[in-house]
């Protein structure tokens, strides 16, 4: 069983990583969702004692690990919080750059930086000239 859970979590993580590398920012958010699901699945799997739900009165036989479930719950909530935040952030970035393509965002940043660099070079040259 541990192999299967590990395999499923790894597939989620791998596809999540693949999506994180996409140029489309919305797909990056999908990637974060998948990676967080992988983490939650791993948390549940980490307490995999395969028993009844840990609710009193306890049935005979094995009981599932309640602690890993509590951790999984917390992780799900945090995952929801950060995903919603990231999605809204992506929306604002798309609106600000008028493009949801990462590549274009990067290109604009590079252009801006190059402009800044040239400006500084020029200022520096002027300073040198003035000093002489």
């Amino acid at each position, binding site marked *: 069983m541990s192999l299967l859970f590990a395999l499923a979590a790894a597939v989620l993580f791998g596809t999540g990583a693949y999506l994180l590398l996409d140029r489309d920012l919305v797909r*990056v958010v999908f990637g*974060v969702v998948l990676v967080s699901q992988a*983490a939650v699945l*791993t948390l549940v*799997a*980490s*307490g995999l004692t395969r028993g009844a739900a840990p609710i009193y009165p306890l049935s005979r036989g094995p009981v599932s690990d309640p602690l890993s479930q509590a951790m999984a719950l917390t992780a799900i909530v945090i995952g929801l919080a*950060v995903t919603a*935040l990231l999605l809204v*952030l992506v929306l604002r970035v798309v609106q600000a750059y008028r493009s949801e393509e990462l590549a274009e965002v990067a290109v604009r940043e590079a252009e801006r930086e190059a402009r800044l660099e040239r400006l500084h070079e020029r200022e520096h040259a002027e300073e040198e000239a003035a000093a002489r």
Partner: protein
Amino acid sequence: MTALSLSLVVPWAAGLVLALLDGRRRLVGWVAVCVLGANLGALVVLAAAVLPDDPVVVTTGNWPAGVGITLRADALGVLFALLSSLALLSATVFEVLEGVRERTFPGLVVLLAAGLTGVFVTGDLFNFYVFFELAMTAGYVLATYGGGRRELGAALVFTTVNLLGTFIFLLSVAGVYHVTGTLEMSGIAARMDEVDANAAVLLAAGFFVAFSVKLGLFPFHFWLPTVYTGARPAVAAILSGGLANIGAYGLLRFGGELLPGELDLAAGALIVIGSASILYGGVLAVSRRTASEMLAYSAIGQVGYVLVAIGVGGPVGFAAAILYTVVNALNKTLLFLTAQMRGALAGATFALGALSVAGVPPAAGFVGKLELFRATAGSPALVALFVLGSALSFVYAFQTYQYDFWRGERRGRRSSAPSRASSPRSRSSSSRWACGRSRCSR
């Protein structure tokens, strides 16, 4: 115990209330400063109790350790908490003086302080994770502060990369829980010996990646320059002087306490990665012309020293790592804040910070460098590396200083040349704050 609880609950509750108020009002800003001051005060009281005696240990709800969450304030944690609190306080004072631009800023900084304090005083692995998330989430929102294109772009990179880092951390937490059956740090440390090498090393690798991303070590650093140059100076100071401490603290706590065997195993790799960071950060910082960009690359180089010190290990190595982290965080806070200002006072402060980065006494950075030299005295290669790194930091710090401040002075002189009597400095110092406010000629 009271001081420990207060240091958590005061910023926590106050931050929530502040988040409802309009932070652009001056009063709200100063209340936030007072809360941060109170947090700092509580931490000082806590430190006074912790440093001479034993750590303060509390388990929530009167349950036995392990069942409840253990809060444990020891010297290492309190030191980092104090340091981060100080960084947040100074950044907030700076921003309140400049004029807060967004409603949520004060509340978020105060909540960030609560999260950071929690991270440093908890003795429970999963509790560490949730406090860590609290601090990071506040950090993600703060990175958008200003709301311009640059800030948003930087915040996006910061958020995505660090989210990946925290999920990797969470995966390792799940693994550690599975192999040890506990979440309490001292319990984990005791049980980790029995875990076989393969699983332990894989989990350790996960933690290492997560904290390296936070710190911005060489192969994981690519997000860092974008973010530190894109964010507003106060936010950059908060991120580098406060939030980044989690990375160094995590490496020390997890490497030194929970997984010492794995740390020894990986010492060589740590030294290699640390050296790469030192050289890479130093070399790239040299040709940067804007102060914030130089600082961003310098940050990469500086954490390299910490990693090398941890890799060298032993009491001296750890002490050097801690000391260097402290000094580095203070330097970065100071420099990010002063880099955007002009005038004699700002210039002198920047110079002081730059001296500190270069490791020149009596600036604190020197003490850190000295400890590093002591820690590595046995290895000529490392000493040569440190000397080279110091030389690089000397070069870039002063190049930037010259570009930014002396040029500013000269410019001031030219413009007031006709009336030589009116000193250029008095002019520039009078316009110091005004100039800092308008983001100075950028």
